[in-house]
C-alpha cells in the first residue's frame, strides 16, 4: 500500500456518509441514484444480510422461505452519478499554520478528496479528479472500481501546489468532461475569486456543485502579535505591519468577505462547508453528505 490519508479509523467514520445528488433526484424524478439496485437489466452481485433501514420490498422472500432469514439482493451496474473532485492547487494552498507547519491547506484538501473518493467508490459511483494548477492541470477521468481508487491516490499524492489559478482557456477539459448533472465537489481556499467563479459557473451550467472551503487558523483567529511581513504566496506581494494593529480590521473585513462568499454560494445553489485546519476532517463531509434514512436530503 502506498500513500493513503484515509486511515482505518477515518474509514470507519466514513461509513455513515452517503454522496447523493440533489439535482438528479429532482430532474429524473424520484430516487434515480438510490434505485440502482433494482429494475431490469441489473446484474446480480451478491446477497447480504438485512439491515434495519432497508426497504422491505428489497428483501428476497424466496430466500427467506428457504433459509428463514432476511436477505437483500444487491446488484451492480454503472451508476448514473459521476463525482468530480476539483482541487485548487494554486500556491496559496501551501499555507500552513505556525502551530502545525506540516499540515498545509493542500494536505487537508488531498485528505478530503481521498475521503470523498472513498465514499463515492464504495457507493459504486464513478469518481474523477481535476487539480487546478496554473501550469499543468492534473486530470483523472471519472471511473469506478478499486483500481480507480488506487489511481486517484497515486495522482493525489503527486499534486504540488504552485502558481496561480489556471486561465479560462486552460479549463476546457473541465467543461468537456464534467457533464451536466454530474456532481462536482470543489476544494479550495476560495481566496482568489477565480475558483468560486468557476464553481458558480459550473452550478449555473446544470452541474450539482458542492464546495468545501479550506481555511487556515490564521484566517479565523489571526493569532499574530508581533511585527510581521505578510507575503502572498501567489503574487509574492509583501505587506509589513504590526499584527496587533492589523488584527481587528482584518477579522472584520475577512468575515465580511466570507459572508459575501457564502451568500453567493447560497444564491448559486452551491452547498458549501468550511474546513479550518485545526478542526476534524470529517466535519465538512458530515455537513454535506450526512446520510439520513431517506438519503439525498443533506
Amino acid at each position: 500500500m502506498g500513500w493513503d490519508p484515509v486511515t482505518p479509523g477515518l474509514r470507519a467514520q466514513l461509513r455513515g456518509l452517503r454522496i447523493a445528488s440533489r439535482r438528479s433526484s429532482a430532474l429524473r424524478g424520484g430516487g434515480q441514484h438510490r434505485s440502482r439496485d433494482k429494475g431490469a437489466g441489473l446484474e446480480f452481485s451478491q446477497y447480504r444480510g438485512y439491515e434495519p433501514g432497508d426497504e422491505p420490498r428489497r428483501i428476497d422472500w424466496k430466500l427467506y422461505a428457504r433459509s428463514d432469514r432476511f436477505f437483500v439482493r444487491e446488484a451492480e451496474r454503472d451508476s448514473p452519478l459521476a463525482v468530480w473532485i476539483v482541487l485548487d492547487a494554486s500556491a496559496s494552498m501551501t499555507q500552513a499554520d505556525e502551530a502545525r507547519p506540516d499540515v498545509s491547506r493542500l494536505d487537508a484538501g488531498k485528505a478530503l478528496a481521498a475521503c470523498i473518493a472513498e465514499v463515492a467508490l464504495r457507493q459504486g459511483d464513478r469518481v474523477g479528479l481535476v487539480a487546478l494548477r496554473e501550469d499543468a492541470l492534473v486530470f483523472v477521468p471519472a471511473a469506478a472500481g478499486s483500481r480507480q481508487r488506487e489511481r486517484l491516490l497515486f495522482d493525489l499524492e503527486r499534486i504540488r501546489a504552485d502558481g496561480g489559478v489556471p486561465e479560462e482557456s486552460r479549463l476546457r477539459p473541465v467543461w468537456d468532461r464534467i457533464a451536466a448533472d454530474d456532481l462536482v465537489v470543489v476544494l479550495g481556499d476560495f481566496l482568489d475569486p477565480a475558483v468560486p467563479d468557476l464553481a458558480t459557473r459550473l452550478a449555473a451550467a446544470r452541474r450539482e456543485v458542492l464546495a468545501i472551503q479550506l481555511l487556515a487558523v490564521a484566517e479565523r483567529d489571526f493569532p499574530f502579535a508581533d511585527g510581521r511581513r505578510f507575503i502572498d504566496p501567489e503574487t509574492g506581494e509583501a505587506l509589513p505591519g504590526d499584527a496587533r494593529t492589523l488584527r481587528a480590521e482584518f477579522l472584520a473585513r475577512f468575515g465580511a468577505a466570507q459572508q459575501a462568499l457564502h451568500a453567493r454560494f447560497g444564491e448559486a445553489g452551491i452547498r458549501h462547508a468550511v474546513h479550518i485546519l485545526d478542526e476534524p476532517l470529517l466535519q465538512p463531509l458530515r455537513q454535506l453528505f450526512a446520510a439520513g434514512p431517506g438519503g439525498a436530503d443533506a
Partner: protein
Amino acid sequence: MNPLLLFPAGLAALAALALPLLIHLARRQQQRPTVFAALRWLQARPRPRRRIRFDEAWLLAVRLLLVALLALLLAQPALLGVVDERPRLLVAPGVDDAALVAARSDPAVDARWLAPGFPSLEEAAPVGGVATASLLREFDATLAPTAPLAVLVPERLLGADAARLQLTRQVEWRITAGGAWPEPVTDAAPKLAIRHDATHRDGMRYLRAAALAWADAEDATVDVAESVELPAQDTGVLAWLHSGPLPDDVLRWAQAGGQVLLPADAEMPDGHAPAAAWRDECGDPLVRAAQAGQGRLLQLAHGLVPAAMPQLLDPTFPHALRDLLQPAPAPTAVAAADYAPGTGGLAMAPVPLDLRPWLALAIALLALLERWLASSRRRGAAT
C-alpha cells in the same frame, strides 16, 4: 546614616540603559516573514501606527535594573555614619588569668585580643608583644569616635615604641598583674670570615681591622684566607672578596642563614633586588642588601679604597659595619603604668561602609533572574 557615592562619575555608565531599550526595540522592527494568502483583506492600513512599544516588559525591566545597578556599582556606593557604639575591650596577651576570665564573662562588651587582626577573645591567646602600640593606634583610629574603649594590659608591657600613645579618646587603661621582661639581648660581636683574591688583598685589611675592633681581647684573630674555601656555617658573616659572578656554593651558604658581603666588582646573582641598607651623609647608598633564603647578600657600592669610600677611615666604621650586620633590637618593653595613653591623637576621617559586595550579590541574583526569564519556555509561547 548618609548614603554617598565615592566615584559619582561612574553614573555616566547609566547611558548604557539605552542598550536594553534598543535591544527590545530592535526585536520589534525585525519582522518575521509570514506566508499569508488572505493578504487582500489585510491592506486596509497601509501605515502601521508608529508607536514606540517594547516587547517582553518584564525582561526589559530586569535588564534595565541590571544595567542601572552595574552603573551604581561603578559609582562605588557607600554608607557614611554607620556607627557601632558598643563598648570595646582590648586585651593584651600576657594578662593575668583571673582578669582574662572576667573580661570574657561580660557579653555586652566586644572583647578582642590586642594582636594583629584583632581576634575575638574566645580564641586562644595569640603571641603577644608584637607592635602593641601600633595596633592600639590602629584600633583607635578605625573605631567610631564615640565608642568607649578599655584596654587590659599586664603591668610589664611589650611592643611599645618610641612615641607616647596619643589616642583620639580617653581610654580606660586597666593594668593587671602579669607580663615578663624580655631576655637581655646578648651583645656578642658577629663572627666574620674573609675570603679574598689577589686584587682585594689591600681592601681586605679594612674589614679585618673592623672585625678586630669589635673584639675586646688583645689576642683576637680573624679568619682570613686567600682562597675560595667556605668557612663553617656558624661563622655568621662571610666577606667574599672575589671579582666576577658569585659561585653557587657561596649563594647556598648565604641561603642557609649566613650573611655574605660582596665587593663592588662582584656580580649579584639574578633574581635578587638589593635595596640600600647603609647610606652616606649625602644619602647615596654605601651598601645594598637583598634577602637570600634565610640569609642576606650585601654588596658594597664602592671599591674598598679610602679614595672611593672615605668612610673606611672613619673611626666609627667598625661600629657602623657592626650595626649593619647585627642591628641592635629596639627597646620595646615598658611598665604599663608609665605608658598610659593620652588624648589628642588626630582622628581619622570616618571610613564609609563600602556597599559594593552587597551590590555585587544583588547583581548576581538579578543576572540569574534575567537568564531565567530570557530562557524560560513561557517566552517562546508569548511571542
